């Protein structure tokens, strides 16, 4: 078995509720590991604490119990081996695309020359080289997300935490972005934890899918995606097995049942 890059050990997270009394348990006793160069997706109903897990992994939140580990080291505060990317591109409007890509490395204090070199290389890789001097508002949504991904990769993290990175773009752009992400992760041998609502996205991009329950979130199932060509999500979508996996995930999430409940409630 290869090296564990990211690990959650018995993580529980409680928040004080709105009145300040009592506690709301977002996630309870979550344990799992992501191995080197592996892509794992986390799916689950809204509010099951997926994003809380991501914040814990990136060191922005401290769990009430348990801990997250990156490369065997306990996560305590932000750390240079992890980088995250959200649904929002979070590009700074006053910086050019290249300057935005350099944002992380610049903060980490790399020499300006090296920052520029990395930004140019990544922008070329993401076919954004000719836009390096543009401002974010001049780019399409898909290009902005690619620039955000470039910024995430610029710090050369061991682990990428991706929180619904493509849910704000249209379906076609999303497939292209998924392809770019899959190829990049594969080429660079990066480890990634992907949070998504999109079951198809989970199946096309990952080696494993973890299913979470409703709040308090725990991991109720783990499904290995055994379709070849993880670096080619578009080919993966055409496989017969793809639909079987999506159906299996739907069953595990009890989607038909939840939908009925919603109807009954309204």
């Amino acid at each position, binding site marked *: 078995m290869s090296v564990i890059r990211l690990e959650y050990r018995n993580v529980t997270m409680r928040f004080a509720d709105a009145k300040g009394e009592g506690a709301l348990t977002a996630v309870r006793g979550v344990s799992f590991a992501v191995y080197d160069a592996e892509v794992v997706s986390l799916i689950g109903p809204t509010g099951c604490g997926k994003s809380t897990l991501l914040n814990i992994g990136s060191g922005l939140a401290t769990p009430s119990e348990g801990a997250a580990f990156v490369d065997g080291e306990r996560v305590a505060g932000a750390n240079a081996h992890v980088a995250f990317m959200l649904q929002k591109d979070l590009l*700074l409007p006053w910086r050019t695309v290249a300057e935005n890509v350099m944002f992380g490395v610049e*903060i980490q204090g790399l020499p300006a020359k090296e920052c520029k070199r990395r930004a140019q290389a990544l922008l070329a890789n993401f076919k954004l080289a000719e836009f390096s001097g543009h401002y974010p508002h001049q780019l399409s949504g898909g290009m902005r997300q690619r620039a955000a991904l470039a910024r995430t990769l610029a710090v050369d993290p061991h682990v990428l935490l991706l929180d619904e990175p493509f849910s704000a773009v249209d379906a076609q752009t999303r497939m292209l972005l998924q392809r770019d992400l899959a190829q990049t992760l594969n080429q660079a041998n990066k480890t990634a934890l992907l949070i998504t609502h999109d079951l198809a996205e989970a199946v096309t991009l990952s080696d494993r899918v973890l299913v979470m329950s409703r709040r308090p979130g725990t991991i109720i199932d783990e499904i290995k995606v055994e379709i070849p060509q993880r670096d080619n999500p578009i080919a993966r979508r055409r496989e017969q097995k793809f639909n079987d996996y999506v159906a299996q995930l739907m069953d595990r999430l009890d989607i038909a049942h939840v939908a009925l409940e919603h109807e009954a409630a309204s």
Partner: protein
Amino acid sequence: MKTGARATPARRGAIASIALLVVFLAAWQWGPDLLGVPSFIVPPLSSVAAEFVRAWQVYHLPLHTGVTVAEVLAGFLLGSLLGALVGYLLGMSPTAELALSPYILALQIAPKVAFAPLFILWMGFTVYPKILVAILIVFFPVMVNVLTAVRNVDPDLINLARAFKASRAQIFWRIEFPSSMPPMFAGLRIGSTLAVVGVVVGELVGGNLGLGYLLTFGEGQANTPLVFVSIVMLTLVGGIAYLMVILVERRVLHYLPARGSGQGG
């Protein structure tokens, strides 16, 4: 592209604007006479122009204008600097904001120009009371806008910087400060015109320098054209101050998507 499509309405607007000015000036020149308004109530344009030349030669119009400009500049710069500083400090410390907000609100509601006589009592017939009124009046729009901007920075942006291990200073200079620029300039625009109001009220109340003084001097002599000259000059000073802010804003906020020429006020 876009500019081509906009050129026609923009040009039409400019032509209409100039036409309106011509109509206004003509009405000023010949309107009073046609309506039988005596010239000591509304002097025609030509007599105001003649008075302008006389004021320039006899009443030291350049000196008075210069003094007012200097006061406006000093009041505006100090007021906006102070406003921005307090805005950032309160923006970064919710406790301080909560503690100070009732007093700030009270001071904001109090009509600042009413302080002018008080400041003159304290500091005499110097330029300082005028500058102080301007500082006070410019302070609030800048402070409130900066404070709100710092408060409204997307927390995810801050988290992004924190995840890259940014220090507090880095978060301020790389995220909070640049994010606050557009609202701050909105505050500066308001401040630039308010600074003139503050200075003029100070000059009206006391002293023997500045356009506000020239205005009361003209009033005392029942010299209506001189009053008009002073008002025109004050408008000019305020207009130039506003324009300067716009010019700096364009340079600083060059990254914002181009806005229609009609916007910005």
